[in-house]
C-alpha cells in the first residue's frame, strides 16, 4: 500500500512552500490510505479549524464543553501520501473516567495512528501541556501543533517553540490555523514523522520512588513477553498499577496484541465498546 518516498532532487522541492502546493484536500473521499493521523487537543484550541483546513471539510465547531461526541474523519493527499485524518473529541486529560477521554485514549492506544497531532493553545500552554504529556506516554509518534499564535502575539506572549520541542522531545509546529499560517510546515512535519524520517524521543514520566520504578520494570518485562513489539508497554504497566479496568480488560482479551495490524480505527465501534465497559 505504501508508495516509495519521493527523493527530493532539488532544493525547491524541500521548501515548505512547494509542499503546500502538494496538498490535495480529499474531503470524505478516502478509498484507502497510507497513514492515519489523529487530532487530539483540549476543547477550544482550534482543533476543528485545523481539521477543516487540511481536509477541506466543514466540520461544525462548537464551544459548549461536552455533549457533541461525533466522529469526524477526512482525507488529504500530501507529498504523494494519502492521509486519513481523525478528529478526536476535545479533552483536558486522558486519565479520567469520562466517555470523551476514553474515546480519545482508546483511539490513540488501540487505533494506533501513525501520527498523533496534539493541538495546543499557545496562550494557555501550561494547561494544554498536561494533555500533551499524557499523549506522549502512550505514543512516541506525536507532533505538537502550537496553535493560536496569532492570539498569543496579540497578547504579547512569546512561546519559544524550539525550547518546547527540545523539552518535550517531539517536533513543534507553530500555526494560526484560522489564517492558514504554518500549515505547510505542520504538514511537512507530520509527513516526516509518519514516514519515519523524523524520530521522536518524547519526555516520559519519571517515578520518584524506587519501588515504583522497580514495579514498572517488572511489569514491563512481563507485558513485553506477552505482547512483543508493543510500543507503550511502560504506559500500559502504569495504567495496570493504577487499576485501570479498561486496560485490564484489554490485557485479558488480548486486544493489545491483536489490534496491531488492524488499521480501521472506527471510532464509533470503539465508542460502543467504551460504553460497554462503563460502570
Amino acid at each position, binding site marked *: 500500500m505504501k508508495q516509495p518516498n519521493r527523493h527530493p532532487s532539488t532544493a525547491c522541492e524541500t521548501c515548505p512552500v512547494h509542499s503546500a502546493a502538494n496538498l490535495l484536500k480529499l474531503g470524505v473521499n478516502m478509498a484507502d490510505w497510507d497513514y492515519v493521523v489523529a487530532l487530539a487537543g483540549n476543547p477550544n484550541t482550534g482543533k476543528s479549524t485545523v481539521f477543516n483546513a487540511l481536509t477541506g471539510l466543514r466540520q461544525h465547531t462548537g464551544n459548549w464543553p461536552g455533549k457533541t461526541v461525533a466522529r469526524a474523519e477526512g482525507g488529504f493527499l500530501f507529498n504523494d501520501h494519502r492521509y486519513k485524518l481523525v478528529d478526536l473529541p476535545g479533552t483536558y486529560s486522558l486519565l*479520567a473516567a469520562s466517555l470523551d477521554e476514553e474515546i480519545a485514549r482508546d483511539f490513540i492506544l488501540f487505533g494506533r495512528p501513525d501520527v498523533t497531532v496534539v493541538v495546543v493553545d499557545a496562550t494557555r500552554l501550561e494547561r494544554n501541556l498536561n494533555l500533551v504529556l499524557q499523549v506522549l506516554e502512550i505514543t512516541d509518534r506525536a507532533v505538537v501543533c502550537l496553535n493560536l499564535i496569532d492570539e498569543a502575539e496579540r497578547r*504579547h506572549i*512569546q512561546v519559544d517553540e524550539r525550547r518546547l520541542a527540545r523539552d518535550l522531545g517531539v517536533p513543534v509546529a507553530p500555526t494560526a490555523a484560522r489564517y492558514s499560517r504554518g500549515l505547510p510546515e505542520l504538514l511537512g512535519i507530520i509527513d516526516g514523522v509518519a514516514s519515519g524520517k523524523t524520530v521522536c524521543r518524547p519526555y516520559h*514520566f519519571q517515578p520518584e520512588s524506587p519501588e515504583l520504578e522497580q514495579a514498572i520494570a517488572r511489569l514491563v518485562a512481563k507485558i513485553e513477553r506477552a505482547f512483543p513489539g508493543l510500543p507503550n508497554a511502560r504506559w500500559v504497566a502504569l495504567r495496570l498499577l493504577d487499576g485501570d479496568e479498561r486496560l485490564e480488560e484489554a490485557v*485479558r482479551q488480548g486486544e493489545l496484541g491483536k489490534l496491531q495490524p488492524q488499521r480501521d480505527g472506527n471510532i464509533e465501534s470503539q465508542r460502543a465498546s467504551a460504553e460497554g465497559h462503563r460502570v
Partner: protein
Amino acid sequence: MQSIQPTTAPEILETAQALRWQVGGNLHEQLVESIYTEAARIADRATVRPDEKTRFDLDRAIDRLVTSRLWGFPLMLLLFTLVFWITISGANIPSGWLAWLLMDTIHPILKAGAAAISMPWWLDGLLIDGVYLATAWVVSVMLPPMAIFFPLFTLLEDFGYLPRVAFNLDNLFKKSGAHGKQSLSLMMGFGCNAAGVIATRIIDSPRERLIAILTNNFALCNGRWPTQILVASLFIGALVPAYLGGIISALAVVGVATLGVLMTFVVSWGLSRTWLRGEVSTFSLELPPYRPPRVWQTIYTSLIDRTIFVLWRAILFAAPAGAVIWLVANLTIGGTSIAEYLINFLNPVGFLIGLNGVILLAYIVAIPANEIVIPTVLMLTVLTAGISELGISAGMMFEAGEGETLALLNAGGWTLLTAVNLMLFSLLHNPCSTTLYTIYKETGSAKWAAVSALLPLGVGFAVTFVVAQVWRLVWLIF
C-alpha cells in the same frame, strides 16, 4: 498449553495486582501531580509574557486569600452571610409597599368592582380571593428578595468568585466520591434546581452526573429562600433584641443553606459507596482572571433574565394553586370542608415530625412551585384555627404584617420547634414538579426521577422526626 505462551494475561494481571499494594494507593495522585508539575515547568521555560505581570500578581494575591486553606471557607461564609443580610434587611420595606399596593388598595377595589356588577359569590371568591390574592402574595413576598439577591449573586459571578468557590469545594466533593464540577451545578441550584440539573451536563462521567442530579435538590432554590427568610425573621430573629434580629436571621438562613451543602456531601458520599460506586475523575478547572464587575449591566440583566423570569413562573403556578386552595377550603362534605378532612388526616404524621397537617397539606398543594408554601400555610391556618377577629373569610389569601402573621401562626399552635422543622423540611423535601420533569428528561428514566423525589423526602422525614423527638425529650427533662 502453558509452555507455549511465555507469559499469560492472568499472570500479568496478578503481578499488577500484587505490585499495586507495594507502590501504595496514591499512585493516581502522584501521576497527575507529576504531569501537572512537569507541564508547568516546561510551559514556564518556553513562555515569555512581558507586560502582564502587574495584573497577574493582583489576581494571584486575591486567589491566595480566597482559596487559602485557612481563610477560604470563613471568607465564603462571611460573603454569603453578608449577601443574605443585605437581602433580608433590604427586602422588608419594599415588601411592605407591595403588600399595601396589591392587597390593601387593589384588592378592595376589585371586590367593590365585583359587587358593582353583582358577580356570583363563588366566582368572586374563586377569582379575587383565590387566584388574585395568591398571585399578589407571591409577588409581594418574592419580588423584593429576588430583586436584591439575584443581582448580588450575579455580581459575585461576574467578578469571578464562583469558580473559586468550586475550587474550595472540589476537595470535599472528591472525598465524597463525586465530581468537583458538581460544585458548579450546586451553585446553579441555589438559583433554581431545574437549572442546576441541566448544568450537570458539564460532568461527563454518567455516574458522577447522576450523583450531582440526585443531590441538586439540597441546594436551597429561590422558591424556598422566601420561606426560610420569613420563618427565620419571624421566629429566630424574634429570640434576640431587635437590633440583632436581622443578622441572626441571616445566620439562621446561612446555617440552613450550609446544612444543605453538608447533606449534598453526605448523600453523595453514601451514593458513591452503595448505589453509584466508581472512581472519581480528575479534572482541571480554569480559574478565570478577576474582572471588575459591570455593575449596571449586571443589575439590569439579572433583573430581566432571572428575577422576572422566575417571578413569572411563580405567578403561573400561584394562580391555579390559589383557585385550588379556595376550592378545598370552601367545598364541604357533610358540613366539613375538604381541607379540614385532609388536615385532620395529616395531623398525626405532622405531629410526629414536629410539623402539623396544615404544613403537610401546603407542601402537597405546593408541589408545582415551592414559592406558594407560606401563603398556603397562612390561609389554611386561618381556616383551622377559626380566627374570626382578623375579619377573614375561609379560603382567602390575606394581607398580614409581620406582627399579625406571627399572632396568627401562634394561634395555629406554632412553636419554635414548628418553625425550625419547617425550615428543615423546606430544605429537605421533594423537588418541585418542574425539576422532577427536568430530571426525567435528563436521565431518561422514571426510576431516577422517582429516586430524586423520594430520597430527599426520606431524609427530610428522618431529620425532622429526630429533631422533634429530641426537642420534646429535652423539654420533658428540663
